[in-house]
Protein backbone atom coordinates (compact mmCIF):
# COMPACT_ATOMS: atom_id res chain seq x y z
CA UNK A 1 0.00 0.00 0.00
CA UNK A 2 2.77 2.43 0.98
CA UNK A 3 4.59 1.56 -2.25
CA UNK A 4 1.42 2.42 -4.23
CA UNK A 5 1.27 5.74 -2.41
CA UNK A 6 4.92 6.53 -3.10
CA UNK A 7 4.57 5.43 -6.74
CA UNK A 8 1.47 7.55 -7.29
CA UNK A 9 2.96 10.64 -5.65
CA UNK A 10 6.22 10.27 -7.52
CA UNK A 11 4.33 10.30 -10.79
CA UNK A 12 3.01 13.76 -9.97
CA UNK A 13 6.31 14.97 -8.56
CA UNK A 14 7.29 16.07 -12.05
CA UNK A 15 3.97 16.66 -13.82
CA UNK A 16 5.60 17.88 -17.02
CA UNK A 17 7.61 14.69 -17.46
CA UNK A 18 4.56 12.57 -16.67
CA UNK A 19 2.54 14.57 -19.20
CA UNK A 20 5.21 13.95 -21.86
CA UNK A 21 5.24 10.22 -21.10
CA UNK A 22 1.46 9.89 -21.03
CA UNK A 23 1.16 11.89 -24.26
CA UNK A 24 3.87 9.79 -25.96
CA UNK A 25 2.03 6.60 -25.11
CA UNK A 26 -1.34 8.09 -26.06
CA UNK A 27 -0.15 9.49 -29.39
CA UNK A 28 1.73 6.27 -30.16
CA UNK A 29 -1.39 4.24 -29.54
CA UNK A 30 -3.49 6.67 -31.56
CA UNK A 31 -0.98 6.45 -34.43
CA UNK A 32 -1.06 2.68 -34.40
CA UNK A 33 -4.84 2.32 -33.98
CA UNK A 34 -5.54 5.12 -36.48
CA UNK A 35 -3.31 3.49 -39.10
CA UNK A 36 -4.83 0.08 -38.53
CA UNK A 37 -8.40 1.46 -38.51
CA UNK A 38 -7.85 3.22 -41.83
CA UNK A 39 -6.28 0.13 -43.37
CA UNK A 40 -9.02 -2.12 -42.00
CA UNK A 41 -11.66 0.19 -43.47
CA UNK A 42 -9.84 0.11 -46.79
CA UNK A 43 -9.63 -3.71 -46.79
CA UNK A 44 -13.24 -4.08 -45.67
CA UNK A 45 -14.36 -1.93 -48.57
CA UNK A 46 -12.34 -4.07 -50.96
CA UNK A 47 -13.96 -7.21 -49.53
CA UNK A 48 -17.43 -5.70 -49.59
CA UNK A 49 -16.94 -4.49 -53.16
CA UNK A 50 -15.99 -8.03 -54.12
CA UNK A 51 -18.99 -9.58 -52.38
CA UNK A 52 -21.52 -6.91 -53.25
CA UNK A 53 -20.67 -6.38 -56.90
CA UNK A 54 -20.18 -9.89 -58.14
CA UNK A 55 -20.73 -13.38 -56.96
CA UNK A 56 -21.92 -12.76 -53.40
CA UNK A 57 -20.36 -14.80 -50.62
CA UNK A 58 -20.50 -18.16 -52.36
CA UNK A 59 -20.58 -19.05 -56.04
CA UNK A 60 -21.86 -22.34 -57.41
CA UNK A 61 -20.73 -22.98 -60.96
CA UNK A 62 -19.98 -25.74 -63.40
CA UNK A 63 -16.75 -27.55 -62.69
CA UNK A 64 -13.89 -25.67 -64.36
CA UNK A 65 -15.89 -22.55 -65.19
CA UNK A 66 -13.97 -20.29 -62.81
CA UNK A 67 -10.60 -21.15 -64.30
CA UNK A 68 -11.85 -21.32 -67.86
CA UNK A 69 -15.08 -19.36 -68.23
CA UNK A 70 -16.12 -20.64 -71.63
CA UNK A 71 -19.66 -20.79 -72.90
CA UNK A 72 -19.65 -24.59 -72.89
CA UNK A 73 -18.98 -24.63 -69.12
CA UNK A 74 -22.50 -24.51 -67.70
CA UNK A 75 -24.82 -25.92 -65.07
CA UNK A 76 -26.97 -28.34 -66.99
CA UNK A 77 -29.84 -28.66 -64.51
CA UNK A 78 -30.13 -25.38 -62.65
CA UNK A 79 -33.61 -26.24 -61.38
CA UNK A 80 -32.32 -29.29 -59.51
CA UNK A 81 -29.47 -27.29 -57.98
CA UNK A 82 -31.78 -24.44 -56.98
CA UNK A 83 -34.30 -26.77 -55.38
CA UNK A 84 -31.49 -28.36 -53.36
CA UNK A 85 -30.27 -24.94 -52.25
CA UNK A 86 -33.80 -24.07 -51.19
CA UNK A 87 -33.40 -26.62 -48.40
CA UNK A 88 -31.02 -24.27 -46.64
CA UNK A 89 -33.07 -21.38 -45.28
CA UNK A 90 -31.80 -17.83 -45.39
CA UNK A 91 -29.69 -18.12 -48.54
CA UNK A 92 -30.38 -15.42 -51.16
CA UNK A 93 -29.66 -16.89 -54.59
CA UNK A 94 -29.30 -15.42 -58.05
CA UNK A 95 -28.65 -17.36 -61.26
CA UNK A 96 -26.19 -15.87 -63.74
CA UNK A 97 -25.41 -16.57 -67.35
CA UNK A 98 -21.90 -15.27 -67.73
CA UNK A 99 -20.48 -14.82 -71.20
CA UNK A 100 -17.30 -13.24 -72.50
CA UNK A 101 -17.84 -11.21 -75.63
CA UNK A 102 -17.70 -7.85 -77.36
CA UNK A 103 -19.86 -4.78 -77.05
CA UNK A 104 -20.09 -2.50 -80.06
CA UNK A 105 -21.33 1.03 -80.26
CA UNK A 106 -21.61 3.01 -83.44
CA UNK A 107 -18.10 4.31 -82.81
CA UNK A 108 -16.06 1.65 -81.08
CA UNK A 109 -15.98 -1.76 -79.44
CA UNK A 110 -14.75 -3.26 -76.21
CA UNK A 111 -14.30 -6.69 -74.65
CA UNK A 112 -16.75 -7.31 -71.79
CA UNK A 113 -18.22 -9.96 -69.56
CA UNK A 114 -21.95 -10.14 -70.18
CA UNK A 115 -23.90 -11.09 -67.06
CA UNK A 116 -27.35 -12.43 -67.82
CA UNK A 117 -29.30 -11.98 -64.60
CA UNK A 118 -32.69 -12.39 -63.08
CA UNK A 119 -33.06 -8.73 -62.03
CA UNK A 120 -35.27 -9.41 -59.03
CA UNK A 121 -33.12 -12.22 -57.62
CA UNK A 122 -29.88 -10.44 -58.46
CA UNK A 123 -30.88 -7.42 -56.39
CA UNK A 124 -30.98 -9.69 -53.30
CA UNK A 125 -27.38 -10.78 -53.82
CA UNK A 126 -25.44 -7.89 -55.38
CA UNK A 127 -25.85 -4.12 -55.27
CA UNK A 128 -25.86 -3.36 -58.99
CA UNK A 129 -29.52 -2.32 -58.80
CA UNK A 130 -28.56 0.28 -56.16
CA UNK A 131 -25.50 1.53 -58.04
CA UNK A 132 -27.44 3.13 -60.90
CA UNK A 133 -26.57 6.75 -61.54
CA UNK A 134 -28.71 7.24 -64.61
CA UNK A 135 -31.70 5.54 -66.21
CA UNK A 136 -33.31 2.50 -64.65
CA UNK A 137 -32.61 -1.10 -63.69
CA UNK A 138 -33.59 -4.05 -65.87
CA UNK A 139 -37.28 -5.00 -65.87
CA UNK A 140 -38.12 -8.42 -64.69
CA UNK A 141 -38.93 -9.48 -68.18
CA UNK A 142 -35.75 -11.47 -68.64
CA UNK A 143 -35.88 -11.56 -72.37
CA UNK A 144 -36.21 -7.85 -73.07
CA UNK A 145 -33.36 -6.49 -75.22
CA UNK A 146 -32.18 -4.11 -72.52
CA UNK A 147 -28.74 -3.57 -71.08
CA UNK A 148 -27.19 -1.79 -68.08
CA UNK A 149 -23.57 -0.71 -68.54
CA UNK A 150 -20.94 0.92 -66.35
CA UNK A 151 -20.35 4.65 -66.49
CA UNK A 152 -16.72 4.23 -67.59
CA UNK A 153 -17.70 1.85 -70.40
CA UNK A 154 -20.39 4.23 -71.61
CA UNK A 155 -17.79 6.99 -71.80
CA UNK A 156 -15.40 4.69 -73.65
CA UNK A 157 -18.08 3.66 -76.14
CA UNK A 158 -19.40 7.21 -76.26
CA UNK A 159 -22.99 6.08 -75.64
CA UNK A 160 -25.82 7.40 -73.54
CA UNK A 161 -28.90 5.93 -71.92
CA UNK A 162 -31.32 5.18 -74.76
CA UNK A 163 -28.61 4.34 -77.30
CA UNK A 164 -28.33 0.91 -78.79
CA UNK A 165 -25.31 -1.36 -78.57
CA UNK A 166 -24.62 -4.74 -80.12
CA UNK A 167 -23.38 -7.69 -78.05
CA UNK A 168 -21.44 -10.36 -79.83
CA UNK A 169 -20.26 -13.70 -78.48
CA UNK A 170 -19.20 -17.12 -79.62
CA UNK A 171 -22.18 -19.35 -78.76
CA UNK A 172 -22.37 -22.97 -77.68
CA UNK A 173 -22.12 -24.10 -81.29
CA UNK A 174 -19.00 -21.96 -81.76
CA UNK A 175 -21.01 -19.72 -84.02
CA UNK A 176 -20.98 -15.95 -83.78
CA UNK A 177 -24.11 -14.87 -82.01
CA UNK A 178 -25.15 -11.27 -81.60
CA UNK A 179 -28.03 -9.12 -80.50
CA UNK A 180 -28.92 -5.44 -80.26
CA UNK A 181 -29.67 -4.07 -76.82
CA UNK A 182 -30.88 -0.67 -75.73
CA UNK A 183 -29.04 0.95 -72.83
CA UNK A 184 -31.57 1.53 -70.06
CA UNK A 185 -29.21 2.41 -67.21
CA UNK A 186 -25.69 3.32 -66.19
CA UNK A 187 -24.15 2.12 -62.96
CA UNK A 188 -21.17 3.38 -60.97
CA UNK A 189 -18.84 1.00 -59.15
CA UNK A 190 -15.87 1.83 -56.89
CA UNK A 191 -13.58 0.55 -59.61
CA UNK A 192 -13.61 1.92 -63.15
CA UNK A 193 -12.12 -1.38 -64.31
CA UNK A 194 -15.22 -3.11 -63.03
CA UNK A 195 -17.44 -0.58 -64.85
CA UNK A 196 -15.60 -1.25 -68.09
CA UNK A 197 -15.72 -4.99 -67.74
CA UNK A 198 -19.26 -5.96 -66.68
CA UNK A 199 -22.56 -5.34 -68.49
CA UNK A 200 -25.95 -6.69 -67.40
CA UNK A 201 -28.79 -8.06 -69.51
CA UNK A 202 -31.78 -10.30 -68.73
CA UNK A 203 -31.05 -13.97 -68.08
CA UNK A 204 -33.31 -15.26 -70.84
CA UNK A 205 -31.78 -12.86 -73.35
CA UNK A 206 -28.32 -14.11 -72.40
CA UNK A 207 -29.40 -17.75 -72.68
CA UNK A 208 -30.75 -17.03 -76.12
CA UNK A 209 -27.52 -15.32 -77.11
CA UNK A 210 -25.45 -18.28 -75.87
CA UNK A 211 -27.70 -20.90 -77.41
CA UNK A 212 -28.65 -22.31 -73.98
CA UNK A 213 -32.04 -23.70 -73.14
CA UNK A 214 -32.34 -23.61 -69.33
CA UNK A 215 -28.63 -23.74 -68.54
CA UNK A 216 -26.84 -21.11 -66.54
CA UNK A 217 -23.18 -20.41 -65.73
CA UNK A 218 -23.42 -20.07 -61.99
CA UNK A 219 -25.55 -19.29 -58.96
CA UNK A 220 -24.37 -16.57 -56.61
CA UNK A 221 -25.37 -16.84 -52.98
CA UNK A 222 -25.52 -14.21 -50.24
CA UNK A 223 -25.35 -15.53 -46.70
CA UNK A 224 -27.28 -14.24 -43.73
CA UNK A 225 -25.70 -11.85 -41.18
CA UNK A 226 -23.45 -13.55 -38.65
CA UNK A 227 -22.41 -16.34 -40.98
CA UNK A 228 -19.22 -18.34 -40.67
CA UNK A 229 -18.05 -18.47 -44.26
CA UNK A 230 -16.08 -21.70 -44.15
CA UNK A 231 -18.89 -23.56 -42.36
CA UNK A 232 -21.49 -22.34 -44.87
CA UNK A 233 -19.35 -23.29 -47.86
CA UNK A 234 -18.85 -26.77 -46.43
CA UNK A 235 -22.56 -27.10 -45.74
CA UNK A 236 -23.44 -26.13 -49.34
CA UNK A 237 -20.78 -28.50 -50.69
CA UNK A 238 -22.19 -31.43 -48.75
CA UNK A 239 -25.74 -30.44 -49.69
CA UNK A 240 -25.05 -30.35 -53.43
CA UNK A 241 -22.40 -33.07 -53.47
CA UNK A 242 -22.10 -33.23 -57.26
CA UNK A 243 -18.85 -33.76 -59.14
CA UNK A 244 -19.94 -31.50 -61.99
CA UNK A 245 -20.27 -28.51 -59.70
CA UNK A 246 -17.71 -26.25 -58.12
CA UNK A 247 -18.58 -24.37 -54.92
CA UNK A 248 -16.24 -21.55 -53.96
CA UNK A 249 -16.29 -18.69 -51.50
CA UNK A 250 -15.33 -15.10 -52.28
CA UNK A 251 -11.96 -15.90 -50.69
CA UNK A 252 -11.36 -18.72 -53.17
CA UNK A 253 -12.25 -16.39 -56.02
CA UNK A 254 -9.95 -13.59 -54.79
CA UNK A 255 -6.72 -15.15 -53.55
CA UNK A 256 -4.85 -11.87 -54.03
CA UNK A 257 -7.27 -10.03 -51.81
CA UNK A 258 -6.97 -12.74 -49.16
CA UNK A 259 -3.20 -12.52 -49.45
CA UNK A 260 -3.41 -8.73 -49.01
CA UNK A 261 -5.41 -9.18 -45.83
CA UNK A 262 -2.96 -11.75 -44.49
CA UNK A 263 -0.04 -9.53 -45.40
CA UNK A 264 -1.77 -6.65 -43.71
CA UNK A 265 -2.20 -8.66 -40.52
CA UNK A 266 1.54 -9.29 -40.54
CA UNK A 267 2.43 -5.70 -41.48
CA UNK A 268 0.28 -4.16 -38.76
CA UNK A 269 2.32 -6.07 -36.21
CA UNK A 270 5.50 -4.70 -37.81
CA UNK A 271 4.05 -1.16 -37.78
CA UNK A 272 3.13 -1.67 -34.13
CA UNK A 273 6.64 -2.89 -33.30
CA UNK A 274 8.26 0.15 -34.95
CA UNK A 275 5.94 2.58 -33.17
CA UNK A 276 6.35 0.80 -29.86
CA UNK A 277 10.15 0.79 -30.13
CA UNK A 278 10.04 4.57 -30.51
CA UNK A 279 7.84 4.79 -27.42
CA UNK A 280 10.13 2.38 -25.57
CA UNK A 281 13.13 4.66 -25.96
CA UNK A 282 11.17 7.66 -24.65
CA UNK A 283 10.02 5.72 -21.62
CA UNK A 284 13.38 4.10 -20.89
CA UNK A 285 15.09 7.49 -21.14
CA UNK A 286 12.57 9.10 -18.77
CA UNK A 287 12.83 6.30 -16.26
CA UNK A 288 16.62 6.40 -16.28
CA UNK A 289 16.33 10.10 -15.41
CA UNK A 290 13.77 9.29 -12.72
CA UNK A 291 16.11 6.76 -11.19
CA UNK A 292 19.10 9.06 -11.32
CA UNK A 293 17.10 11.74 -9.48
CA UNK A 294 15.90 9.29 -6.84
CA UNK A 295 18.99 7.22 -6.06
CA UNK A 296 19.17 8.61 -2.52
CA UNK A 297 15.48 7.94 -1.96
CA UNK A 298 15.94 4.30 -2.97
CA UNK A 299 18.88 4.10 -0.58
CA UNK A 300 16.75 5.48 2.30
CA UNK A 301 13.98 3.03 1.53
CA UNK A 302 16.31 0.05 1.37
CA UNK A 303 18.06 1.15 4.57
CA UNK A 304 14.68 1.19 6.26
CA UNK A 305 13.83 -2.33 5.23
CA UNK A 306 12.43 -2.17 1.69
CA UNK A 307 13.66 -5.18 -0.25
CA UNK A 308 15.29 -4.58 -3.65
CA UNK A 309 12.47 -6.48 -5.39
CA UNK A 310 9.99 -4.02 -3.89
CA UNK A 311 11.94 -1.11 -5.37
CA UNK A 312 11.49 -2.82 -8.74
CA UNK A 313 7.80 -3.35 -8.03
CA UNK A 314 7.36 0.30 -7.11
CA UNK A 315 8.90 1.42 -10.38
CA UNK A 316 6.69 -1.04 -12.25
CA UNK A 317 3.70 0.39 -10.45
CA UNK A 318 4.69 3.85 -11.63
CA UNK A 319 5.08 2.51 -15.15
CA UNK A 320 1.73 0.74 -14.92
CA UNK A 321 -0.10 3.88 -13.81
CA UNK A 322 1.56 5.91 -16.58
CA UNK A 323 0.68 3.18 -19.10
CA UNK A 324 -2.96 3.14 -18.01
CA UNK A 325 -3.17 6.93 -18.28
CA UNK A 326 -1.43 6.90 -21.68
CA UNK A 327 -3.59 4.04 -22.95
CA UNK A 328 -6.74 5.82 -21.79
CA UNK A 329 -5.65 8.97 -23.58
CA UNK A 330 -4.81 6.95 -26.71
CA UNK A 331 -8.15 5.12 -26.69
CA UNK A 332 -10.17 8.28 -26.07
CA UNK A 333 -8.41 10.09 -28.93
CA UNK A 334 -8.84 7.05 -31.18
CA UNK A 335 -12.53 6.71 -30.31
CA UNK A 336 -13.10 10.41 -31.02
CA UNK A 337 -11.24 10.26 -34.32
CA UNK A 338 -12.56 6.93 -35.54
CA UNK A 339 -16.00 7.67 -34.12
CA UNK A 340 -16.16 10.73 -36.34
CA UNK A 341 -14.53 9.37 -39.49
CA UNK A 342 -16.16 5.96 -39.05
CA UNK A 343 -19.53 7.67 -39.58
CA UNK A 344 -18.63 10.57 -41.84
CA UNK A 345 -15.96 8.68 -43.78
CA UNK A 346 -12.55 9.93 -44.77
CA UNK A 347 -12.89 11.69 -48.11
CA UNK A 348 -9.94 10.80 -50.35
CA UNK A 349 -11.33 12.21 -53.59
CA UNK A 350 -7.88 13.45 -54.56
CA UNK A 351 -6.73 9.82 -54.70
CA UNK A 352 -9.82 8.54 -56.50
CA UNK A 353 -7.97 6.95 -59.41
CA UNK A 354 -5.53 5.11 -57.18
CA UNK A 355 -8.31 3.91 -54.92
CA UNK A 356 -10.39 2.75 -57.89
CA UNK A 357 -7.56 0.39 -58.82
CA UNK A 358 -8.19 -1.38 -55.53
CA UNK A 359 -11.94 -1.43 -55.99
CA UNK A 360 -12.43 1.10 -53.24
CA UNK A 361 -14.54 4.27 -53.37
CA UNK A 362 -13.26 7.74 -52.59
CA UNK A 363 -14.64 7.67 -49.06
CA UNK A 364 -12.98 5.22 -46.70
CA UNK A 365 -14.67 4.38 -43.39
CA UNK A 366 -12.05 3.48 -40.78
CA UNK A 367 -12.92 0.63 -38.45
CA UNK A 368 -11.47 -0.60 -35.19
CA UNK A 369 -10.90 -4.33 -34.88
CA UNK A 370 -10.67 -6.14 -31.56
CA UNK A 371 -7.48 -7.82 -32.83
CA UNK A 372 -5.78 -4.44 -33.37
CA UNK A 373 -6.93 -3.10 -30.01
CA UNK A 374 -5.59 -6.25 -28.35
CA UNK A 375 -2.25 -5.95 -30.17
CA UNK A 376 -2.13 -2.26 -29.19
CA UNK A 377 -2.93 -2.87 -25.56
CA UNK A 378 -0.72 -5.90 -25.10
CA UNK A 379 2.02 -4.21 -27.12
CA UNK A 380 1.99 -1.01 -25.11
CA UNK A 381 1.99 -2.87 -21.80
CA UNK A 382 4.84 -5.10 -22.97
CA UNK A 383 6.81 -2.13 -24.27
CA UNK A 384 6.43 -0.12 -21.09
CA UNK A 385 7.41 -3.04 -18.92
CA UNK A 386 10.40 -3.91 -21.09
CA UNK A 387 11.46 -0.26 -21.13
CA UNK A 388 11.33 -0.06 -17.35
CA UNK A 389 13.04 -3.42 -16.87
CA UNK A 390 16.60 -2.14 -17.10
CA UNK A 391 16.06 1.05 -15.03
CA UNK A 392 14.16 -0.96 -12.39
CA UNK A 393 16.87 -3.60 -12.12
CA UNK A 394 19.48 -0.88 -11.96
CA UNK A 395 17.60 0.91 -9.16
CA UNK A 396 17.28 -2.26 -7.12
CA UNK A 397 20.98 -3.07 -7.43
CA UNK A 398 22.35 0.14 -5.98
CA UNK A 399 24.51 -0.44 -2.94
CA UNK A 400 22.50 1.04 -0.08
CA UNK A 401 25.48 2.82 1.40
CA UNK A 402 26.39 4.46 -1.93
CA UNK A 403 22.77 5.33 -2.70
CA UNK A 404 22.23 7.12 0.62
CA UNK A 405 25.34 9.23 0.08
CA UNK A 406 24.42 10.04 -3.53
CA UNK A 407 23.81 13.74 -4.13
Amino acid at each position, binding site marked *: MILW*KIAWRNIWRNPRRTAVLVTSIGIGLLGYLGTSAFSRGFLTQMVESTINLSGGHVLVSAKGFLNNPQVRMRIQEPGVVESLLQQTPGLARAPIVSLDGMINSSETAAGVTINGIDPDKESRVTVISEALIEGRYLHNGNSAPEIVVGEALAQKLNVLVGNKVVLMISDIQNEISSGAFRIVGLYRAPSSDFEKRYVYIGKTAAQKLAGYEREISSISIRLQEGYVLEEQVESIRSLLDRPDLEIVSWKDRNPLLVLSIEMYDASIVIIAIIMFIAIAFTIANSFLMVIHERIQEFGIMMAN*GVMPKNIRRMLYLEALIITILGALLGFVLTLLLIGYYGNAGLDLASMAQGLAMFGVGTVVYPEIWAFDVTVGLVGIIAVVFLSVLYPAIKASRFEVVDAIRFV
Partner: protein
Amino acid sequence: MNIVALNSITKVYQDKNRIPVQALTDVSLTIGDGEFAALAGPSGSGKTTLLNIIGGLDKPTHGTVHVAGRELTSMNRDELAEFRLQSLGFVFQAFNLIPVLTAEENAEFMLLLQGVPAEERHARVQREFAELGIESDLMQRRPSELSGGQQQRVAIARALVSHPKLILADEPTANLDSKTGSVLLDQMKKLNEKKGVTFLFSTHDTMVMERASRLLLLHDGELVEDKRS
Protein backbone atom coordinates in the same frame (compact mmCIF):
# COMPACT_ATOMS: atom_id res chain seq x y z
CA MET B 1 24.00 -9.32 26.85
CA ASN B 2 25.70 -7.93 23.77
CA ILE B 3 23.60 -6.56 20.96
CA VAL B 4 26.62 -5.95 18.72
CA ALA B 5 29.69 -8.16 18.45
CA LEU B 6 32.34 -7.35 15.86
CA ASN B 7 35.25 -9.68 15.33
CA SER B 8 38.35 -8.52 13.44
CA ILE B 9 36.55 -6.24 11.04
CA THR B 10 38.60 -5.00 8.14
CA LYS B 11 37.21 -2.93 5.32
CA VAL B 12 39.07 -2.09 2.16
CA TYR B 13 37.30 -0.20 -0.58
CA GLN B 14 38.39 1.29 -3.87
CA ASP B 15 38.26 5.04 -4.31
CA LYS B 16 37.16 6.81 -7.52
CA ASN B 17 40.55 6.10 -9.08
CA ARG B 18 40.24 2.41 -8.12
CA ILE B 19 43.02 2.77 -5.58
CA PRO B 20 42.47 0.51 -2.52
CA VAL B 21 41.79 2.43 0.69
CA GLN B 22 41.93 0.73 4.07
CA ALA B 23 38.92 2.14 5.96
CA LEU B 24 38.97 -0.23 8.97
CA THR B 25 41.70 -2.47 10.33
CA ASP B 26 41.01 -5.42 12.57
CA VAL B 27 38.28 -3.79 14.64
CA SER B 28 36.77 -5.97 17.35
CA LEU B 29 34.25 -4.72 19.87
CA THR B 30 31.01 -5.52 21.61
CA ILE B 31 28.13 -3.25 22.54
CA GLY B 32 25.79 -4.25 25.30
CA ASP B 33 22.05 -4.05 25.35
CA GLY B 34 20.80 -0.59 26.41
CA GLU B 35 24.09 1.23 25.89
CA PHE B 36 24.26 4.84 24.72
CA ALA B 37 27.56 4.64 22.88
CA ALA B 38 29.40 6.90 20.48
CA LEU B 39 31.99 6.20 17.83
CA ALA B 40 34.21 9.24 17.70
CA GLY B 41 37.23 10.27 15.74
CA PRO B 42 38.41 12.68 13.08
CA SER B 43 37.02 12.73 9.54
CA GLY B 44 38.13 9.66 7.60
CA SER B 45 38.74 7.62 10.74
CA GLY B 46 36.15 5.00 9.70
CA LYS B 47 33.24 5.93 12.02
CA THR B 48 30.53 5.92 9.34
CA THR B 49 31.98 2.84 7.64
CA LEU B 50 31.82 0.94 10.92
CA LEU B 51 28.28 2.15 11.59
CA ASN B 52 27.22 1.08 8.09
CA ILE B 53 28.72 -2.37 8.62
CA ILE B 54 26.89 -2.77 11.93
CA GLY B 55 23.67 -1.65 10.19
CA GLY B 56 24.07 -4.16 7.36
CA LEU B 57 24.31 -1.34 4.83
CA ASP B 58 27.86 -2.32 3.94
CA LYS B 59 29.85 -5.52 4.22
CA PRO B 60 33.31 -5.91 5.73
CA THR B 61 36.18 -7.24 3.64
CA HIS B 62 37.12 -9.54 6.53
CA GLY B 63 35.65 -10.38 9.90
CA THR B 64 32.25 -11.26 11.31
CA VAL B 65 29.39 -9.05 12.43
CA HIS B 66 26.78 -10.21 14.94
CA VAL B 67 23.89 -7.86 15.60
CA ALA B 68 20.89 -8.80 17.73
CA GLY B 69 22.01 -12.41 17.60
CA ARG B 70 22.26 -12.58 13.79
CA GLU B 71 25.41 -12.93 11.71
CA LEU B 72 25.16 -10.30 8.96
CA THR B 73 28.02 -11.05 6.58
CA SER B 74 26.42 -14.22 5.27
CA MET B 75 23.03 -12.61 4.61
CA ASN B 76 21.86 -11.67 1.11
CA ARG B 77 20.35 -8.28 0.24
CA ASP B 78 16.76 -9.35 0.92
CA GLU B 79 17.65 -10.92 4.24
CA LEU B 80 19.57 -7.82 5.26
CA ALA B 81 16.61 -5.60 4.32
CA GLU B 82 14.28 -7.77 6.39
CA PHE B 83 16.74 -7.73 9.28
CA ARG B 84 17.01 -3.93 9.18
CA LEU B 85 13.22 -3.67 9.05
CA GLN B 86 12.71 -5.87 12.11
CA SER B 87 15.70 -5.00 14.28
CA LEU B 88 17.24 -1.63 13.44
CA GLY B 89 16.46 2.04 13.30
CA PHE B 90 18.53 4.61 11.45
CA VAL B 91 19.00 8.33 11.99
CA PHE B 92 21.09 10.03 9.33
CA GLN B 93 22.98 13.29 9.23
CA ALA B 94 20.90 14.52 6.28
CA PHE B 95 17.61 13.37 7.91
CA ASN B 96 16.82 11.26 4.82
CA LEU B 97 13.07 11.39 4.89
CA ILE B 98 11.11 10.25 1.85
CA PRO B 99 10.19 13.51 0.12
CA VAL B 100 6.76 12.48 -1.23
CA LEU B 101 5.46 11.29 2.15
CA THR B 102 4.12 13.48 4.96
CA ALA B 103 5.78 13.59 8.37
CA GLU B 104 3.27 11.08 9.71
CA GLU B 105 3.67 8.73 6.73
CA ASN B 106 7.47 8.92 7.02
CA ALA B 107 7.27 8.05 10.70
CA GLU B 108 4.99 5.08 10.11
CA PHE B 109 6.91 3.90 7.04
CA MET B 110 8.55 0.91 8.73
CA LEU B 111 5.35 -0.02 10.53
CA LEU B 112 3.55 -0.12 7.17
CA LEU B 113 6.24 -2.42 5.82
CA GLN B 114 5.88 -4.59 8.91
CA GLY B 115 2.14 -4.80 8.34
CA VAL B 116 1.15 -3.20 11.65
CA PRO B 117 -2.61 -2.41 11.70
CA ALA B 118 -3.62 1.20 11.06
CA GLU B 119 -4.95 1.92 14.56
CA GLU B 120 -1.80 0.71 16.26
CA ARG B 121 0.34 2.58 13.74
CA HIS B 122 -1.38 5.88 14.40
CA ALA B 123 -1.25 5.39 18.16
CA ARG B 124 2.48 4.58 18.09
CA VAL B 125 3.33 7.48 15.78
CA GLN B 126 1.32 9.94 17.86
CA ARG B 127 2.99 8.71 21.04
CA GLU B 128 6.49 9.14 19.57
CA PHE B 129 5.61 12.53 18.10
CA ALA B 130 4.36 13.65 21.51
CA GLU B 131 7.52 12.42 23.23
CA LEU B 132 9.72 14.16 20.66
CA GLY B 133 7.70 17.37 20.85
CA ILE B 134 6.42 17.28 17.27
CA GLU B 135 3.28 19.40 17.06
CA SER B 136 0.25 17.69 15.55
CA ASP B 137 -0.11 20.39 12.88
CA LEU B 138 3.20 19.22 11.40
CA MET B 139 2.00 15.68 10.82
CA GLN B 140 0.59 16.28 7.39
CA ARG B 141 3.51 18.37 6.15
CA ARG B 142 6.04 17.04 3.72
CA PRO B 143 9.78 17.13 4.59
CA SER B 144 10.36 20.18 2.40
CA GLU B 145 7.89 22.08 4.60
CA LEU B 146 9.72 21.25 7.84
CA SER B 147 12.80 22.80 9.46
CA GLY B 148 15.99 20.77 9.90
CA GLY B 149 15.21 20.12 13.56
CA GLN B 150 11.66 19.07 12.79
CA GLN B 151 12.87 16.72 10.04
CA GLN B 152 15.40 15.13 12.37
CA ARG B 153 12.69 14.62 15.03
CA VAL B 154 10.53 12.88 12.44
CA ALA B 155 13.54 10.74 11.43
CA ILE B 156 14.08 9.78 15.07
CA ALA B 157 10.39 9.00 15.42
CA ARG B 158 10.65 6.77 12.33
CA ALA B 159 13.58 4.96 13.91
CA LEU B 160 11.79 4.52 17.23
CA VAL B 161 8.20 3.59 16.33
CA SER B 162 9.11 0.14 15.14
CA HIS B 163 10.67 -0.60 18.56
CA PRO B 164 14.07 -1.63 17.18
CA LYS B 165 16.69 -3.35 19.26
CA LEU B 166 19.35 -0.90 18.09
CA ILE B 167 19.32 2.65 16.72
CA LEU B 168 22.27 3.71 14.64
CA ALA B 169 22.68 7.46 14.35
CA ASP B 170 25.21 8.83 11.89
CA GLU B 171 26.18 12.40 12.84
CA PRO B 172 22.58 13.19 13.84
CA THR B 173 23.38 16.69 15.05
CA ALA B 174 25.72 17.74 12.25
CA ASN B 175 23.07 19.63 10.28
CA LEU B 176 21.35 21.15 13.30
CA ASP B 177 22.05 24.27 15.33
CA SER B 178 23.56 23.51 18.74
CA LYS B 179 20.37 24.28 20.68
CA THR B 180 18.21 21.97 18.56
CA GLY B 181 20.94 19.34 18.59
CA SER B 182 21.19 19.47 22.35
CA VAL B 183 17.41 19.15 22.81
CA LEU B 184 17.27 16.17 20.46
CA LEU B 185 20.17 14.43 22.18
CA ASP B 186 18.47 14.89 25.53
CA GLN B 187 15.32 13.35 24.11
CA MET B 188 17.26 10.39 22.73
CA LYS B 189 19.06 9.94 26.06
CA LYS B 190 15.69 10.00 27.83
CA LEU B 191 14.34 7.33 25.45
CA ASN B 192 17.45 5.23 26.08
CA GLU B 193 16.99 5.44 29.83
CA LYS B 194 13.21 5.04 29.76
CA LYS B 195 12.83 2.33 27.14
CA GLY B 196 16.25 0.73 27.21
CA VAL B 197 16.78 1.27 23.47
CA THR B 198 20.44 0.86 22.50
CA PHE B 199 21.90 3.86 20.67
CA LEU B 200 25.16 3.89 18.73
CA PHE B 201 26.28 7.23 17.33
CA SER B 202 28.99 8.13 14.93
CA THR B 203 30.01 11.67 15.74
CA HIS B 204 32.64 14.27 16.30
CA ASP B 205 30.19 16.50 18.10
CA THR B 206 31.27 17.08 21.72
CA MET B 207 27.62 17.32 22.81
CA VAL B 208 27.12 13.73 21.75
CA MET B 209 30.38 12.56 23.33
CA GLU B 210 29.48 14.24 26.62
CA ARG B 211 26.16 12.41 26.83
CA ALA B 212 27.49 9.04 25.68
CA SER B 213 27.96 6.42 28.40
CA ARG B 214 30.71 4.86 26.29
CA LEU B 215 33.12 6.43 23.86
CA LEU B 216 34.86 4.39 21.19
CA LEU B 217 37.64 6.31 19.57
CA LEU B 218 38.73 5.46 16.05
CA HIS B 219 41.84 6.69 14.35
CA ASP B 220 42.86 5.77 10.79
CA GLY B 221 40.49 2.83 10.84
CA GLU B 222 41.69 1.38 14.11
CA LEU B 223 39.94 1.31 17.45
CA VAL B 224 42.40 3.16 19.67
CA GLU B 225 40.37 3.80 22.80
CA ASP B 226 37.28 2.41 24.52
CA LYS B 227 36.22 4.71 27.35
CA ARG B 228 33.25 4.14 29.66
CA SER B 229 31.85 6.91 31.81
